């Protein structure tokens, strides 16, 4: 089953799916392990594993700092791939890689994707790789049956959305608003019109990210998006209260 099919199937049972995010090696792989176990237990549907990069331009302060601290503590790409293999082996839900293009480019795009596939990864989100620059990546993803998840933005035109969807896989990551990760979004009328536009442009399920941090946010997405993405919020939570707090937080979202 493709990732897209799997998501559609899961949506039959649940009004909205949850996708969470964490930065690999931050604060440590041990904590990552515990956080992931609690997330899966609490019913998270998909997990995004961010391989840290020194120049995370699309990320806001929380994730930015997590990237840097992970690198400062010596986290290597090789370790991230090994850790991903361990997680996909242990847990049933789909895991994705999120990272910036240089991590793939420097490793060798083909080799990196091959290795990701072998690690059980189902798809990738690369925010600084528009399809125009991603020929090698998109071709290899298709060959390896990895989902090259595409991103829609409020600024994307209809034509652009169609084009992106044509290159996409798994689902579409709809950036909820202008700006970077980690700050509040207001889900207003403009937002509804935006999601409508997204729906009309693609058959893929829609994930909505940026600034979702509580049940109210998730409720507002019900009936609009297929997947609610929780990013900085869990990182903040783990920093403040430790990995154990994750269970209750996730359980409370839905």
């Amino acid at each position, binding site marked *: 089953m493709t990732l897209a099919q799997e998501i559609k199937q899961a949506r039959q049972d649940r009004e909205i799916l949850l996708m969470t995010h964490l930065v690999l090696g931050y604060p440590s792989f041990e904590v990552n392990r515990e956080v992931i176990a609690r997330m899966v237990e609490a019913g998270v549907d998909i997990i995004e594993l961010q391989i840290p990069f020194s120049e995370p*331009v699309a990320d806001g*302060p929380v994730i930015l700092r997590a990237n840097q601290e992970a690198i400062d503590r010596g986290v290597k790409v090789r370790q991230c791939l090994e850790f991903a293999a361990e997680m996909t082996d242990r847990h049933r839900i789909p895991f994705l890689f999120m990272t910036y293009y240089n991590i793939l480019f420097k490793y060798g795009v083909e080799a990196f994707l091959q290795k990701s596939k072998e690690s059980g990864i189902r798809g990738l989100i690369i925010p600084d790789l528009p399809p125009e620059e991603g020929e090698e990546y998109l071709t290899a993803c298709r060959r390896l049956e990895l989902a090259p998840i595409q991103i829609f933005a409020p600024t*994307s035109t209809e034509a652009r959305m169609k084009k992106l969807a044509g290159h996409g896989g798994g689902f579409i990551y709809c950036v909820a608003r202008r700006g970077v990760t980690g700050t509040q979004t207001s889900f207003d009328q403009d937002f509804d019109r935006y999601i409508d536009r997204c729906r009309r442009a693609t058959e893929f399920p829609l994930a909505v990210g940026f600034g979702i941090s509580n049940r109210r946010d998730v409720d507002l997405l019900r009936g609009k998006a297929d997947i609610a993405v929780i990013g900085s919020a869990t990182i903040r939570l783990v920093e403040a209260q430790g990995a154990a707090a994750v269970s209750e937080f996730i359980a409370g979202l839905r």
Partner: protein
Amino acid sequence: MKPGYYGNWGGAFVPEILHETFRQLNAVFAEAQADPSFWQQYVDLMASYSCRPTPLTLAENLTRRFGGAQIYIKREDLNHTGAHKANNVMGQGLLVRRMGKTRVIAETGAGQHGVATATMAAKFGLACTIYMGEEDVQRQRPNVFWMEKLGATVVPVTSGSRTLKDAINEAFRDWVANMDSTHYVMGTVCGPHPFPAMVAWFQKIIGEETRRQILAAHGRLPARVYACVGGGSNAMGIFQGFMADEEVELVGVEAGGKGLTTGQHAARLTAEEAGNHPAGTPGVAQGYKTMFLQDSDGQMKDTHSVAAGLDYIGVSPMLADLWEGGRVRMAAATDAEVMEALQLTMASEGIIPALESAHAFVQAFREAGELPPEAAIVINQSGRGDKDIFTIAHAFKDPSWQAFIRAKGEEYAKEPAS
């Protein structure tokens, strides 16, 4: 070749949210390029607001000293705000007007690009925010002061190595939130397409003037042209005047910092010895593909140079291509060599190059003696050094300067904000 590529380098690795912004930018830039009155407007602005054409000065004493080629200096230091940065910034200001945006943002390392942008914003009536690594804010406080007085908000960037590259990231973060009102004034021939093309286009005014001037002054083309290379904008600016003249050798000079073998430098393309690999390797970051100083995972390294404006991980994709194709030769100058060349230039010619520019002087001094007196060489003096007083006086360990600063500090400690 794909648009925005120079051989293997360049591109536009841009988050989707900026796709439309870049489409608009490309369109406005193409329109401007196609409109001869735009270039004329630009030239007029630079003539009446800055002091273009900037002179080409024959350095008689240095020429005599090295006993070889006639040494000419292109005087970008005489631009308004003190460096070639003004060319690019005023040009982009005209594009901002065309786009009808009301705010500009920029990154800055040495502060020169920040001061130039704040200046342009004041002149064009635009709001302005400048991102500057916290470390550079400390190193370049005078520039911060001027930016603020010019009406800009200076935001110290505390992430990463707290230097130029982090300021660029932070500027992008602002941009993805505010692109409707805001233009990002990239300071050098780097970043995603069309920035390299756009900045190079505005900066080519240096090379066009220089070609005319050297022919008038020397009667023939120069044998070599030297320019320091941070991002590469002053180098591309002057090199473009001679690109088609195959007999003119183009030499870019990178920051050798404490030495190419120390790891503390910002030389991306210069190999430590002929035949060796350079320290930079291909990568994609900050929106474009070039030779970066990075580790084997693709994480960017810390760089070092006495010249904040050269202290950067990447290099223009255009220069990476010209270097790869052999059209541009790359060299490096160490901090120590730079201080020596600076001292010599001040005392011999009464000219104070910026620390960045002094890198080009080092390499020119090394080579001037090899050439016959009929030959001429041109050094691009990208900026003036008096803005660098804190760094230069510090580097020279000037005791009176230190005593002066101590006394001032004590005065402020006694009656703060008096």
